[in-house]
Protein backbone atom coordinates (compact mmCIF):
# COMPACT_ATOMS: atom_id res chain seq x y z
CA UNK A 1 0.00 0.00 0.00
CA UNK A 2 1.32 3.45 -0.92
CA UNK A 3 1.38 6.28 1.60
CA UNK A 4 -0.99 9.18 0.95
CA UNK A 5 0.26 12.69 1.73
CA UNK A 6 -1.33 16.09 1.56
CA UNK A 7 1.11 18.15 -0.48
CA UNK A 8 -0.81 21.36 -1.12
CA UNK A 9 -3.94 23.12 0.09
CA UNK A 10 -5.96 26.11 -1.03
CA UNK A 11 -9.21 27.82 -0.20
CA UNK A 12 -11.35 30.63 -1.53
CA UNK A 13 -12.46 33.53 0.64
CA UNK A 14 -15.41 32.44 2.81
CA UNK A 15 -18.66 34.28 3.35
CA UNK A 16 -21.14 35.90 1.03
CA UNK A 17 -19.12 36.34 -2.14
CA UNK A 18 -19.84 37.65 -5.62
CA UNK A 19 -18.27 34.65 -7.37
CA UNK A 20 -20.18 31.59 -8.64
CA UNK A 21 -19.14 28.14 -7.43
CA UNK A 22 -16.77 27.34 -10.27
CA UNK A 23 -14.92 30.61 -9.74
CA UNK A 24 -14.64 29.96 -6.03
CA UNK A 25 -13.09 26.64 -7.03
CA UNK A 26 -10.64 28.53 -9.28
CA UNK A 27 -9.56 30.62 -6.29
CA UNK A 28 -8.95 27.55 -4.14
CA UNK A 29 -7.13 25.76 -6.94
CA UNK A 30 -4.95 28.76 -7.76
CA UNK A 31 -3.77 28.92 -4.16
CA UNK A 32 -3.11 25.17 -3.93
CA UNK A 33 -1.05 25.16 -7.14
CA UNK A 34 0.71 28.49 -6.62
CA UNK A 35 4.15 26.93 -6.31
CA UNK A 36 3.49 23.69 -8.19
CA UNK A 37 3.43 22.63 -11.84
CA UNK A 38 0.07 22.73 -13.66
CA UNK A 39 -2.65 20.52 -12.19
CA UNK A 40 -2.59 18.37 -15.35
CA UNK A 41 1.09 17.62 -14.72
CA UNK A 42 0.44 16.61 -11.11
CA UNK A 43 -2.95 14.92 -10.63
CA UNK A 44 -4.60 12.00 -12.40
CA UNK A 45 -8.15 12.51 -11.23
CA UNK A 46 -10.40 14.41 -8.89
CA UNK A 47 -13.26 14.14 -6.45
CA UNK A 48 -15.49 17.10 -5.71
CA UNK A 49 -17.68 17.33 -2.63
CA UNK A 50 -20.89 19.23 -3.37
CA UNK A 51 -24.01 19.04 -1.24
CA UNK A 52 -26.73 20.18 -3.58
CA UNK A 53 -27.39 21.08 -7.19
CA UNK A 54 -30.23 23.29 -5.99
CA UNK A 55 -27.99 26.26 -5.18
CA UNK A 56 -26.80 26.79 -8.75
CA UNK A 57 -28.89 24.24 -10.69
CA UNK A 58 -25.75 22.50 -11.82
CA UNK A 59 -24.72 18.88 -11.54
CA UNK A 60 -21.80 17.19 -13.35
CA UNK A 61 -19.56 19.01 -10.91
CA UNK A 62 -16.79 16.44 -11.47
CA UNK A 63 -16.57 17.26 -15.16
CA UNK A 64 -16.91 20.98 -14.58
CA UNK A 65 -14.16 21.22 -11.94
CA UNK A 66 -11.89 19.02 -14.05
CA UNK A 67 -12.31 21.42 -16.99
CA UNK A 68 -11.63 24.41 -14.78
CA UNK A 69 -8.45 22.69 -13.58
CA UNK A 70 -7.30 22.00 -17.14
CA UNK A 71 -7.94 18.26 -16.94
CA UNK A 72 -9.54 16.18 -19.65
CA UNK A 73 -10.40 12.50 -19.89
CA UNK A 74 -9.56 11.81 -16.26
CA UNK A 75 -11.79 10.17 -13.64
CA UNK A 76 -13.69 13.08 -12.07
CA UNK A 77 -16.55 12.42 -9.70
CA UNK A 78 -18.86 14.40 -7.50
CA UNK A 79 -19.43 12.80 -4.11
CA UNK A 80 -22.33 13.63 -1.85
CA UNK A 81 -22.92 13.07 1.84
CA UNK A 82 -24.41 16.47 2.68
CA UNK A 83 -21.92 18.31 4.90
CA UNK A 84 -19.54 15.32 4.94
CA UNK A 85 -19.03 15.52 1.17
CA UNK A 86 -15.67 17.31 1.45
CA UNK A 87 -14.10 14.72 3.73
CA UNK A 88 -15.57 12.01 1.54
CA UNK A 89 -13.76 13.53 -1.46
CA UNK A 90 -10.55 13.48 0.59
CA UNK A 91 -11.15 9.91 1.70
CA UNK A 92 -11.68 8.76 -1.88
CA UNK A 93 -8.51 10.53 -3.02
CA UNK A 94 -6.55 8.88 -0.19
CA UNK A 95 -8.00 5.48 -1.05
CA UNK A 96 -6.96 5.81 -4.71
CA UNK A 97 -3.42 6.90 -3.83
CA UNK A 98 -3.01 4.20 -1.18
CA UNK A 99 -4.23 1.54 -3.60
CA UNK A 100 -1.85 2.73 -6.30
CA UNK A 101 -4.73 3.53 -8.66
CA UNK A 102 -3.36 7.06 -9.00
CA UNK A 103 -0.14 8.78 -7.97
CA UNK A 104 -1.86 12.04 -7.13
CA UNK A 105 -5.51 13.07 -6.85
CA UNK A 106 -7.22 16.41 -6.30
CA UNK A 107 -9.85 16.46 -3.54
CA UNK A 108 -11.99 19.54 -3.70
CA UNK A 109 -15.27 20.87 -2.41
CA UNK A 110 -17.47 23.74 -3.41
CA UNK A 111 -20.77 25.28 -2.39
CA UNK A 112 -22.37 28.53 -3.44
CA UNK A 113 -24.98 28.60 -0.70
CA UNK A 114 -26.19 32.18 -0.98
CA UNK A 115 -27.27 31.90 -4.63
CA UNK A 116 -30.92 31.18 -3.77
CA UNK A 117 -31.17 33.34 -0.67
CA UNK A 118 -31.97 32.09 2.82
CA UNK A 119 -35.06 30.32 1.55
CA UNK A 120 -33.05 28.50 -1.11
CA UNK A 121 -30.47 27.36 1.42
CA UNK A 122 -33.13 26.22 3.90
CA UNK A 123 -34.90 24.20 1.24
CA UNK A 124 -31.69 22.72 -0.17
CA UNK A 125 -30.48 21.68 3.29
CA UNK A 126 -33.89 20.26 4.14
CA UNK A 127 -33.28 17.52 1.60
CA UNK A 128 -30.70 16.04 3.97
CA UNK A 129 -33.39 14.87 6.35
CA UNK A 130 -35.57 11.79 6.14
CA UNK A 131 -38.32 12.58 3.68
CA UNK A 132 -41.37 10.60 4.73
CA UNK A 133 -41.72 11.73 8.34
CA UNK A 134 -39.10 14.44 9.00
CA UNK A 135 -39.21 16.62 5.89
CA UNK A 136 -42.99 16.30 5.80
CA UNK A 137 -43.04 17.75 9.32
CA UNK A 138 -41.26 20.93 8.18
CA UNK A 139 -37.95 20.22 9.85
CA UNK A 140 -34.77 22.27 9.27
CA UNK A 141 -31.09 21.80 10.08
CA UNK A 142 -31.11 23.97 13.23
CA UNK A 143 -34.24 22.16 14.45
CA UNK A 144 -32.78 18.69 14.03
CA UNK A 145 -29.68 19.69 15.98
CA UNK A 146 -31.85 21.44 18.55
CA UNK A 147 -33.48 18.06 19.18
CA UNK A 148 -30.03 16.72 20.07
CA UNK A 149 -29.16 19.79 22.14
CA UNK A 150 -32.40 19.76 24.12
CA UNK A 151 -31.91 16.14 25.07
CA UNK A 152 -28.20 16.73 25.88
CA UNK A 153 -29.15 19.53 28.29
CA UNK A 154 -31.79 17.23 29.79
CA UNK A 155 -29.49 14.26 30.35
CA UNK A 156 -26.30 16.05 31.42
CA UNK A 157 -25.65 19.02 33.69
CA UNK A 158 -24.68 21.15 30.68
CA UNK A 159 -26.52 24.45 30.25
CA UNK A 160 -27.28 26.83 27.40
CA UNK A 161 -24.48 28.96 28.79
CA UNK A 162 -22.04 26.08 28.32
CA UNK A 163 -23.07 25.80 24.67
CA UNK A 164 -22.65 29.56 24.29
CA UNK A 165 -19.09 29.32 25.59
CA UNK A 166 -18.26 27.02 22.66
CA UNK A 167 -19.38 29.74 20.25
CA UNK A 168 -17.32 32.34 22.14
CA UNK A 169 -14.22 30.11 22.01
CA UNK A 170 -14.58 29.44 18.28
CA UNK A 171 -15.10 33.11 17.45
CA UNK A 172 -11.98 33.92 19.51
CA UNK A 173 -10.00 31.34 17.50
CA UNK A 174 -11.34 32.66 14.19
CA UNK A 175 -10.20 36.15 15.10
CA UNK A 176 -6.61 35.08 14.39
CA UNK A 177 -7.47 33.04 11.26
CA UNK A 178 -7.13 35.09 8.07
CA UNK A 179 -9.25 32.49 6.25
CA UNK A 180 -12.21 32.86 8.62
CA UNK A 181 -15.55 34.37 7.65
CA UNK A 182 -15.97 36.03 11.07
CA UNK A 183 -12.62 37.38 12.26
CA UNK A 184 -13.95 38.89 15.43
CA UNK A 185 -14.54 37.77 18.96
CA UNK A 186 -18.01 37.84 20.54
CA UNK A 187 -18.78 37.95 24.25
CA UNK A 188 -20.87 35.49 26.20
CA UNK A 189 -23.74 37.90 26.79
CA UNK A 190 -24.04 38.62 23.05
CA UNK A 191 -24.34 34.90 22.37
CA UNK A 192 -26.83 34.36 25.21
CA UNK A 193 -28.98 37.34 24.21
CA UNK A 194 -29.14 36.48 20.50
CA UNK A 195 -32.38 35.56 18.79
CA UNK A 196 -33.70 31.99 19.12
CA UNK A 197 -33.28 29.93 15.97
CA UNK A 198 -34.52 26.61 17.33
CA UNK A 199 -34.50 26.51 21.14
CA UNK A 200 -32.20 25.88 22.92
CA UNK A 201 -30.06 26.95 19.92
CA UNK A 202 -29.69 30.67 19.32
CA UNK A 203 -28.14 32.55 16.42
CA UNK A 204 -24.55 32.16 17.57
CA UNK A 205 -25.01 28.43 18.20
CA UNK A 206 -25.37 27.96 14.44
CA UNK A 207 -22.74 27.96 11.69
CA UNK A 208 -23.46 30.52 8.98
CA UNK A 209 -24.63 29.97 5.42
CA UNK A 210 -21.36 30.37 3.50
CA UNK A 211 -20.03 30.48 -0.05
CA UNK A 212 -16.67 28.83 -0.48
CA UNK A 213 -14.39 26.25 -2.00
CA UNK A 214 -11.31 24.31 -0.92
CA UNK A 215 -8.77 22.14 -2.71
CA UNK A 216 -6.33 19.58 -1.34
CA UNK A 217 -3.74 17.68 -3.36
CA UNK A 218 -3.15 14.09 -2.20
CA UNK A 219 -0.05 12.32 -3.52
CA UNK A 220 2.12 9.28 -2.92
CA UNK A 221 5.65 9.57 -1.50
CA UNK A 222 7.31 9.76 -4.92
CA UNK A 223 5.20 12.63 -6.18
CA UNK A 224 5.40 14.33 -2.80
CA UNK A 225 9.20 14.26 -2.79
CA UNK A 226 9.32 15.47 -6.41
CA UNK A 227 7.21 18.47 -5.49
CA UNK A 228 8.31 19.52 -2.04
CA UNK A 229 10.64 19.29 0.87
CA UNK A 230 9.64 16.48 3.15
CA UNK A 231 8.46 18.69 6.04
CA UNK A 232 5.98 20.45 3.78
CA UNK A 233 3.93 17.27 3.32
CA UNK A 234 1.48 15.90 5.87
CA UNK A 235 0.83 12.17 5.98
CA UNK A 236 -2.76 10.91 5.91
CA UNK A 237 -2.26 8.23 8.53
CA UNK A 238 -5.80 7.01 9.02
CA UNK A 239 -9.30 7.24 7.61
CA UNK A 240 -12.66 5.93 8.75
CA UNK A 241 -16.28 6.50 7.92
CA UNK A 242 -19.66 5.27 9.01
CA UNK A 243 -23.30 5.79 8.17
CA UNK A 244 -25.86 5.74 10.97
CA UNK A 245 -29.63 6.04 10.45
CA UNK A 246 -30.94 8.94 8.41
CA UNK A 247 -33.80 9.82 10.77
CA UNK A 248 -32.68 11.61 13.92
CA UNK A 249 -35.43 9.92 15.96
CA UNK A 250 -33.92 6.51 15.35
CA UNK A 251 -30.52 7.34 16.81
CA UNK A 252 -29.12 7.88 20.26
CA UNK A 253 -29.73 11.61 20.74
CA UNK A 254 -26.84 12.19 23.14
CA UNK A 255 -24.14 9.86 21.87
CA UNK A 256 -23.05 10.03 18.23
CA UNK A 257 -22.26 6.37 17.80
CA UNK A 258 -21.50 6.59 14.07
CA UNK A 259 -18.92 9.29 14.70
CA UNK A 260 -17.31 7.10 17.35
CA UNK A 261 -17.08 4.24 14.86
CA UNK A 262 -15.56 6.54 12.21
CA UNK A 263 -13.01 8.03 14.65
CA UNK A 264 -12.11 4.65 16.14
CA UNK A 265 -11.58 3.24 12.65
CA UNK A 266 -9.32 6.17 11.75
CA UNK A 267 -7.35 5.81 15.01
CA UNK A 268 -6.86 2.12 14.37
CA UNK A 269 -5.87 2.72 10.75
CA UNK A 270 -3.28 5.25 11.92
CA UNK A 271 -2.13 3.24 14.94
CA UNK A 272 -2.80 6.11 17.33
CA UNK A 273 -4.86 6.68 20.47
CA UNK A 274 -7.15 9.63 21.23
CA UNK A 275 -4.50 10.90 23.67
CA UNK A 276 -2.02 11.22 20.76
CA UNK A 277 -4.14 13.85 19.02
CA UNK A 278 -2.77 17.40 19.47
CA UNK A 279 -5.28 19.35 17.39
CA UNK A 280 -8.75 18.44 16.14
CA UNK A 281 -11.15 20.06 13.74
CA UNK A 282 -14.58 18.72 14.59
CA UNK A 283 -17.87 19.45 12.90
CA UNK A 284 -19.40 22.25 15.00
CA UNK A 285 -22.23 23.08 12.60
CA UNK A 286 -24.07 23.76 15.86
CA UNK A 287 -22.36 24.25 19.21
CA UNK A 288 -23.77 21.04 20.67
CA UNK A 289 -21.96 19.03 17.93
CA UNK A 290 -18.58 20.09 19.27
CA UNK A 291 -19.45 18.69 22.70
CA UNK A 292 -20.90 15.48 21.24
CA UNK A 293 -17.90 14.94 18.98
CA UNK A 294 -15.36 15.56 21.75
CA UNK A 295 -17.02 12.64 23.51
CA UNK A 296 -17.34 10.47 20.39
CA UNK A 297 -13.65 11.02 19.57
CA UNK A 298 -12.87 9.86 23.14
CA UNK A 299 -11.21 13.13 24.09
CA UNK A 300 -13.77 13.70 26.84
CA UNK A 301 -15.73 11.60 29.31
CA UNK A 302 -19.43 11.23 28.47
CA UNK A 303 -21.38 14.34 29.36
CA UNK A 304 -18.24 16.51 29.64
CA UNK A 305 -17.74 17.42 26.00
CA UNK A 306 -18.67 21.03 26.75
CA UNK A 307 -15.21 21.48 28.29
CA UNK A 308 -13.64 21.92 24.83
CA UNK A 309 -13.51 25.59 25.81
CA UNK A 310 -11.26 25.02 28.82
CA UNK A 311 -7.48 24.96 28.74
CA UNK A 312 -6.22 21.37 29.03
CA UNK A 313 -5.16 21.83 32.67
CA UNK A 314 -8.63 23.01 33.69
CA UNK A 315 -10.62 20.10 32.25
CA UNK A 316 -12.24 17.16 34.06
CA UNK A 317 -10.28 14.00 34.74
CA UNK A 318 -10.37 11.74 31.71
CA UNK A 319 -9.98 14.58 29.21
CA UNK A 320 -7.01 14.66 26.81
CA UNK A 321 -5.04 17.87 26.17
CA UNK A 322 -6.30 18.26 22.59
CA UNK A 323 -7.03 21.74 21.16
CA UNK A 324 -10.31 21.77 19.27
CA UNK A 325 -11.30 23.95 16.31
CA UNK A 326 -8.29 26.24 16.29
CA UNK A 327 -9.55 27.55 12.93
CA UNK A 328 -12.71 28.89 14.53
CA UNK A 329 -14.59 25.84 13.35
CA UNK A 330 -17.62 25.80 11.09
CA UNK A 331 -19.16 28.23 13.54
CA UNK A 332 -16.83 31.14 12.87
CA UNK A 333 -14.52 30.12 10.03
CA UNK A 334 -17.62 29.41 7.92
CA UNK A 335 -19.45 26.33 6.61
CA UNK A 336 -19.69 26.13 2.81
CA UNK A 337 -21.23 22.67 3.07
CA UNK A 338 -19.40 20.62 0.40
CA UNK A 339 -16.07 22.33 1.10
CA UNK A 340 -16.14 22.11 4.90
CA UNK A 341 -14.36 18.77 5.30
CA UNK A 342 -11.52 20.08 3.15
CA UNK A 343 -11.32 23.35 5.07
CA UNK A 344 -10.75 21.19 8.15
CA UNK A 345 -7.86 19.56 6.29
CA UNK A 346 -6.48 22.99 5.35
CA UNK A 347 -6.36 23.98 9.03
CA UNK A 348 -4.70 20.70 10.04
CA UNK A 349 -2.17 21.03 7.22
CA UNK A 350 -1.27 24.52 8.41
CA UNK A 351 -1.02 23.41 12.05
CA UNK A 352 1.11 20.35 11.26
CA UNK A 353 3.50 22.27 8.98
CA UNK A 354 3.89 25.21 11.37
CA UNK A 355 2.02 27.64 9.11
CA UNK A 356 -0.82 28.52 11.51
CA UNK A 357 0.60 31.88 12.58
CA UNK A 358 -0.91 33.36 15.74
CA UNK A 359 -3.09 30.31 16.31
CA UNK A 360 -0.22 27.81 15.97
CA UNK A 361 -0.39 25.05 18.58
CA UNK A 362 3.13 24.30 19.83
CA UNK A 363 4.46 20.87 18.84
CA UNK A 364 1.32 19.89 16.93
CA UNK A 365 2.23 16.57 15.30
CA UNK A 366 -1.05 14.68 15.02
CA UNK A 367 -4.49 15.91 14.01
CA UNK A 368 -7.98 14.45 13.85
CA UNK A 369 -10.68 15.72 11.51
CA UNK A 370 -14.34 14.82 11.95
CA UNK A 371 -16.76 15.86 9.20
CA UNK A 372 -20.43 14.99 9.49
CA UNK A 373 -23.33 14.95 7.07
CA UNK A 374 -27.06 14.89 7.63
CA UNK A 375 -28.05 15.32 11.26
CA UNK A 376 -24.89 14.65 13.28
CA UNK A 377 -23.64 11.12 12.61
CA UNK A 378 -26.00 10.27 9.75
CA UNK A 379 -22.70 10.08 7.88
CA UNK A 380 -19.31 10.70 9.46
CA UNK A 381 -15.84 10.74 7.94
CA UNK A 382 -12.82 10.86 10.27
CA UNK A 383 -9.23 11.46 9.19
CA UNK A 384 -5.95 11.30 11.14
CA UNK A 385 -3.08 13.40 9.83
CA UNK A 386 0.56 13.33 10.94
CA UNK A 387 3.41 15.77 10.49
CA UNK A 388 6.46 14.33 8.71
Amino acid at each position, binding site marked *: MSTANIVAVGASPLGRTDLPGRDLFSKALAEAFEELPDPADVVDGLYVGAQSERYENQIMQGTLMAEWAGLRNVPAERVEACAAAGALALKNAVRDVRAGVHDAVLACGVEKMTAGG*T*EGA*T*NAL*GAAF*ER*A*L*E*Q*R*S*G*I*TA*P*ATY*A*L*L*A*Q*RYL*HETDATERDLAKIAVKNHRNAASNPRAMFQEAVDLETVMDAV*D*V*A*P*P*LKLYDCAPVTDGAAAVVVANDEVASDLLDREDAVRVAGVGSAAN*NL*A*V*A*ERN*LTYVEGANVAASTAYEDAGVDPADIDVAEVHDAFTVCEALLAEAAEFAPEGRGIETVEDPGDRSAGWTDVRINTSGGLKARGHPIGATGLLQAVEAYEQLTGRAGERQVTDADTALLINEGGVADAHTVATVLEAQ
Partner: protein
Amino acid sequence: MTDTDSTTTGPLAPDDITADSPFTLPGFFDALAEGRLVAARCTECDEHMLPPRPACYGCGSRAVTIEEQPRTGEVISYTSVNRPPSAFDHLAPITVAVVELDSSARLTGRVDASLEDVTIGDRVELQVRDPESVDIDLDFDLSYEEDWPIHVFELV
Protein backbone atom coordinates in the same frame (compact mmCIF):
# COMPACT_ATOMS: atom_id res chain seq x y z
CA MET B 1 -55.54 -4.45 0.71
CA THR B 2 -52.98 -3.40 3.28
CA ASP B 3 -52.14 -6.33 5.46
CA THR B 4 -51.33 -5.01 8.91
CA ASP B 5 -51.62 -8.32 10.70
CA SER B 6 -48.99 -10.13 8.71
CA THR B 7 -47.28 -12.96 10.49
CA THR B 8 -44.84 -13.26 7.61
CA THR B 9 -41.24 -13.10 8.64
CA GLY B 10 -38.08 -13.60 6.71
CA PRO B 11 -36.72 -11.90 3.63
CA LEU B 12 -39.35 -10.31 1.44
CA ALA B 13 -39.73 -11.97 -1.94
CA PRO B 14 -39.66 -9.68 -4.98
CA ASP B 15 -43.41 -10.16 -5.44
CA ASP B 16 -44.06 -8.95 -1.86
CA ILE B 17 -42.76 -5.49 -2.65
CA THR B 18 -45.78 -3.71 -4.06
CA ALA B 19 -47.45 -0.35 -3.48
CA ASP B 20 -50.03 -1.94 -1.19
CA SER B 21 -47.46 -3.59 1.06
CA PRO B 22 -46.81 -1.72 4.30
CA PHE B 23 -43.12 -2.42 3.70
CA THR B 24 -43.31 0.28 1.02
CA LEU B 25 -44.04 3.96 1.67
CA PRO B 26 -47.31 3.97 -0.37
CA GLY B 27 -48.55 1.00 1.65
CA PHE B 28 -47.45 2.60 4.93
CA PHE B 29 -49.28 5.84 4.15
CA ASP B 30 -52.37 3.99 2.87
CA ALA B 31 -52.53 2.25 6.24
CA LEU B 32 -52.00 5.57 8.04
CA ALA B 33 -54.83 7.16 6.02
CA GLU B 34 -57.06 4.37 7.36
CA GLY B 35 -55.94 5.14 10.90
CA ARG B 36 -53.40 2.40 11.34
CA LEU B 37 -49.82 3.34 12.22
CA VAL B 38 -47.61 0.39 11.37
CA ALA B 39 -43.96 -0.34 12.02
CA ALA B 40 -41.71 -3.20 11.07
CA ARG B 41 -40.61 -5.32 14.02
CA CYS B 42 -37.49 -7.44 13.87
CA THR B 43 -38.29 -10.96 15.04
CA GLU B 44 -34.63 -11.50 15.95
CA CYS B 45 -33.86 -8.48 18.16
CA ASP B 46 -37.25 -6.76 18.57
CA GLU B 47 -36.13 -3.45 17.02
CA HIS B 48 -39.07 -1.36 15.74
CA MET B 49 -38.71 0.57 12.49
CA LEU B 50 -41.02 3.38 11.51
CA PRO B 51 -41.76 3.62 8.62
CA PRO B 52 -41.24 -0.11 8.02
CA ARG B 53 -38.08 -1.32 6.32
CA PRO B 54 -37.28 -4.67 4.70
CA ALA B 55 -34.31 -5.30 7.01
CA CYS B 56 -33.39 -4.53 10.61
CA TYR B 57 -30.76 -1.85 11.10
CA GLY B 58 -30.21 -3.15 14.62
CA CYS B 59 -28.99 -6.63 13.73
CA GLY B 60 -29.14 -6.94 9.95
CA SER B 61 -31.82 -9.60 9.94
CA ARG B 62 -34.42 -9.58 7.19
CA ALA B 63 -36.81 -11.55 9.38
CA VAL B 64 -39.14 -8.62 9.89
CA THR B 65 -42.86 -8.50 10.43
CA ILE B 66 -45.49 -5.76 10.45
CA GLU B 67 -46.98 -4.66 13.73
CA GLU B 68 -49.65 -2.05 14.39
CA GLN B 69 -48.35 0.59 16.79
CA PRO B 70 -49.88 2.27 19.79
CA ARG B 71 -50.72 5.88 18.94
CA THR B 72 -49.58 7.19 22.29
CA GLY B 73 -46.11 7.93 23.50
CA GLU B 74 -43.81 10.37 25.22
CA VAL B 75 -41.84 13.42 24.09
CA ILE B 76 -38.14 12.66 24.44
CA SER B 77 -36.92 15.87 22.82
CA TYR B 78 -38.51 18.93 21.25
CA THR B 79 -37.83 22.30 19.69
CA SER B 80 -39.35 24.96 17.50
CA VAL B 81 -38.78 25.51 13.79
CA ASN B 82 -38.94 29.29 13.65
CA ARG B 83 -38.04 29.57 9.95
CA PRO B 84 -39.30 26.40 8.26
CA PRO B 85 -38.86 25.42 4.61
CA SER B 86 -41.04 27.61 2.42
CA ALA B 87 -43.82 25.02 1.97
CA PHE B 88 -44.46 25.21 5.73
CA ASP B 89 -44.22 29.00 6.13
CA HIS B 90 -47.85 29.43 7.11
CA LEU B 91 -47.42 27.01 10.03
CA ALA B 92 -44.43 28.81 11.61
CA PRO B 93 -43.31 28.60 14.31
CA ILE B 94 -43.64 24.81 14.21
CA THR B 95 -43.18 22.81 17.40
CA VAL B 96 -41.55 19.48 16.62
CA ALA B 97 -40.68 16.56 18.84
CA VAL B 98 -39.01 13.21 18.84
CA VAL B 99 -41.65 10.87 20.25
CA GLU B 100 -41.09 7.42 21.66
CA LEU B 101 -44.28 5.42 21.26
CA ASP B 102 -45.34 3.03 23.97
CA SER B 103 -44.03 0.19 21.76
CA SER B 104 -40.53 1.83 21.79
CA ALA B 105 -40.70 2.82 18.10
CA ARG B 106 -39.58 6.41 17.60
CA LEU B 107 -40.49 9.09 15.11
CA THR B 108 -40.27 12.83 14.65
CA GLY B 109 -43.39 14.89 14.14
CA ARG B 110 -45.04 18.25 14.60
CA VAL B 111 -46.76 18.86 17.91
CA ASP B 112 -50.00 20.79 17.74
CA ALA B 113 -49.08 23.05 20.67
CA SER B 114 -46.93 26.07 21.46
CA LEU B 115 -43.32 25.45 22.38
CA GLU B 116 -43.92 26.75 25.91
CA ASP B 117 -46.58 24.10 26.47
CA VAL B 118 -44.31 21.16 25.62
CA THR B 119 -41.61 19.53 27.69
CA ILE B 120 -39.66 16.29 27.83
CA GLY B 121 -41.79 13.52 29.29
CA ASP B 122 -45.12 14.91 28.04
CA ARG B 123 -47.63 12.35 26.84
CA VAL B 124 -48.80 12.76 23.24
CA GLU B 125 -51.15 11.01 20.83
CA LEU B 126 -50.68 10.69 17.09
CA GLN B 127 -53.30 12.30 14.85
CA VAL B 128 -53.63 11.80 11.13
CA ARG B 129 -54.52 14.83 9.02
CA ASP B 130 -55.71 15.13 5.47
CA PRO B 131 -52.93 16.86 3.49
CA GLU B 132 -55.40 19.44 2.16
CA SER B 133 -56.42 20.47 5.67
CA VAL B 134 -52.75 21.09 6.56
CA ASP B 135 -52.47 23.31 3.48
CA ILE B 136 -48.86 22.55 2.67
CA ASP B 137 -47.74 24.09 -0.60
CA LEU B 138 -48.65 21.63 -3.37
CA ASP B 139 -45.25 22.16 -4.99
CA PHE B 140 -43.71 20.45 -1.99
CA ASP B 141 -45.37 17.12 -2.76
CA LEU B 142 -43.82 14.63 -5.10
CA SER B 143 -46.28 13.00 -7.50
CA TYR B 144 -46.67 9.91 -5.37
CA GLU B 145 -47.12 11.87 -2.12
CA GLU B 146 -50.19 13.89 -3.03
CA ASP B 147 -52.69 11.73 -1.13
CA TRP B 148 -50.44 10.78 1.74
CA PRO B 149 -51.73 11.94 5.11
CA ILE B 150 -49.72 14.23 7.38
CA HIS B 151 -49.00 13.05 10.92
CA VAL B 152 -49.07 15.35 13.93
CA PHE B 153 -49.04 14.86 17.70
CA GLU B 154 -51.47 16.31 20.22
CA LEU B 155 -50.77 16.64 23.92
CA VAL B 156 -52.94 14.34 26.04
